[in-house]
């Protein structure tokens, strides 16, 4: 029996049996599904919806484990039986595609993660798909609501808001995919047959395919608000040439430059490159330039 058939039968058996309560709860609470999928860490006294973590943890199908080493539980890590998540994703996608686009988005990302993770071949595409879905779901959620909590190696507490738009571009680069439509920088998502205004809401784009790949695999953009500055994170999901780091950075800068303010001139481009290559902050470089 193939992997997929076996998994589906297993899902069905589990969900129709012992994990019925979990399936119902996850179906009711989109946030709970997301927090379990991204294994978010929550404080013991926090609520999801109207339920405490303690209550939810008593239902079959959930795995709430201690995240710290304290004797009294301070933080829990949320988890669920993957089969329930898978079942939820498949059912939700069918049911909600027309009615509730936002919930359909979560279901699509859950499916994407589980489909990618279930295969053992180490093709870069699967890892990219998984990480794109993971990071998109996690961005701005509880316990991943700042840049440093979403990506621990980035030491900035810029607040993040949940992603509202996502798309996958096959065989594309920013140059070929980002278009100017009706005074807006937009990208056409062929899977959803719609145009996405990149600057309208937090957006993640997965550039996949081996023909003319972008200098990075995932681009996550959060537009500015009155409270916080805009953030752009570009991600290379499988980096294997540390000696070629400078080349990688140059390529990313070259890819992004046409879409960044004031980057058409060589000076600003070099400034951006310098800020990425040196430990000095951009402001330091700017002041040196002025001096």
């Amino acid at each position, binding site marked *: 029996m193939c992997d997929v058939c076996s*998994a589906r039968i297993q899902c069905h058996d589990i969900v129709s049996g012992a994990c019925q309560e979990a399936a119902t709860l996850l179906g009711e609470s989109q946030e709970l599904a997301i927090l379990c999928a991204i294994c978010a860490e929550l404080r013991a006294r926090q609520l999801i919806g109207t339920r405490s973590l303690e209550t939810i943890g008593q239902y079959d*199908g959930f795995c709430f484990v201690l995240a710290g080493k304290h004797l009294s539980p301070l933080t829990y890590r949320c988890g669920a039986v993957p089969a329930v998540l898978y079942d939820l994703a498949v059912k939700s996608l069918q049911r909600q595609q027309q009615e509730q686009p936002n919930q359909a988005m979560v279901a699509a990302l859950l499916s994407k993660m589980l489909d990618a993770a279930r295969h053992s071949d*180490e093709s870069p595409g699967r890892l990219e798909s998984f990480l794109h879905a993971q990071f998109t779901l996690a961005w701005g959620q509880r316990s991943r609501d700042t840049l440093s909590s979403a990506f621990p190696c*980035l030491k900035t507490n810029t607040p993040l808001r949940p992603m509202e738009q996502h798309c996958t571009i096959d065989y594309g680069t920013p140059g070929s995919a980002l278009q100017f439509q009706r*005074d807006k920088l937009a990208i056409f998502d062929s899977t959803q047959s719609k145009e996405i205004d990149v600057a309208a809401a937090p957006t993640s784009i997965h550039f996949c395919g081996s023909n003319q790949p972008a200098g990075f695999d995932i681009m996550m953009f959060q537009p500015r608000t009155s409270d916080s500055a*805009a953030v752009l994170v570009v991600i290379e999901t499988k980096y294997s040439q540390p000696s070629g780091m400078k080349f990688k950075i140059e390529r990313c800068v070259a890819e992004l430059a046409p879409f960044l303010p004031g980057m058409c001139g060589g000076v600003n481009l070099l400034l951006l490159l310098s800020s990425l290559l040196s430990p000095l902050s951009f402001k330091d470089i700017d002041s040196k330039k002025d001096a």
Partner: protein
Amino acid sequence: MLDSTPLQDMDGLFGRYAIRSGVPYEPKTAQEKKFLETKRMMMKKKKKEDDGEQQATVALVSFEELATMPTQATSNKKLDVEPENIYLLCVSHQQFAEGIRESVRHNMGKVNVLPSRELMNLIGPMWRSFPLFRKVRANSKLILVLEPRIGASAAASPY
């Protein structure tokens, strides 16, 4: 009878006819010809403009070429983000990532390498058992795909 039997698409069959309200005819009246010609010209003009736009703004050039280009007029085709808020994140599963991490952090400012241990911690323990990540945990024991963990056994051995 006519209602239940769809008419053949004469245009599709012969390339000369069209069906309008169930009547096959040749769409070559002077008015239609003028309309088609205008439409064709507009499409041609639009394609030309799009091509020109594409070349002017998103054509791929080498970094050296880009860096030496003179400053051009401001365009609206921008992601409104300050350079200091742009981050490049490289994810690596290789062993050498542990070694180069400090050096990259020290020498390359905003460029970071996320080693597999941190990545797996970020993604969450639940995903470690999946085939995609087995090689990341070479020493871990094999766990079945979508393995059910229910009730008490889940509490005792959550992942």
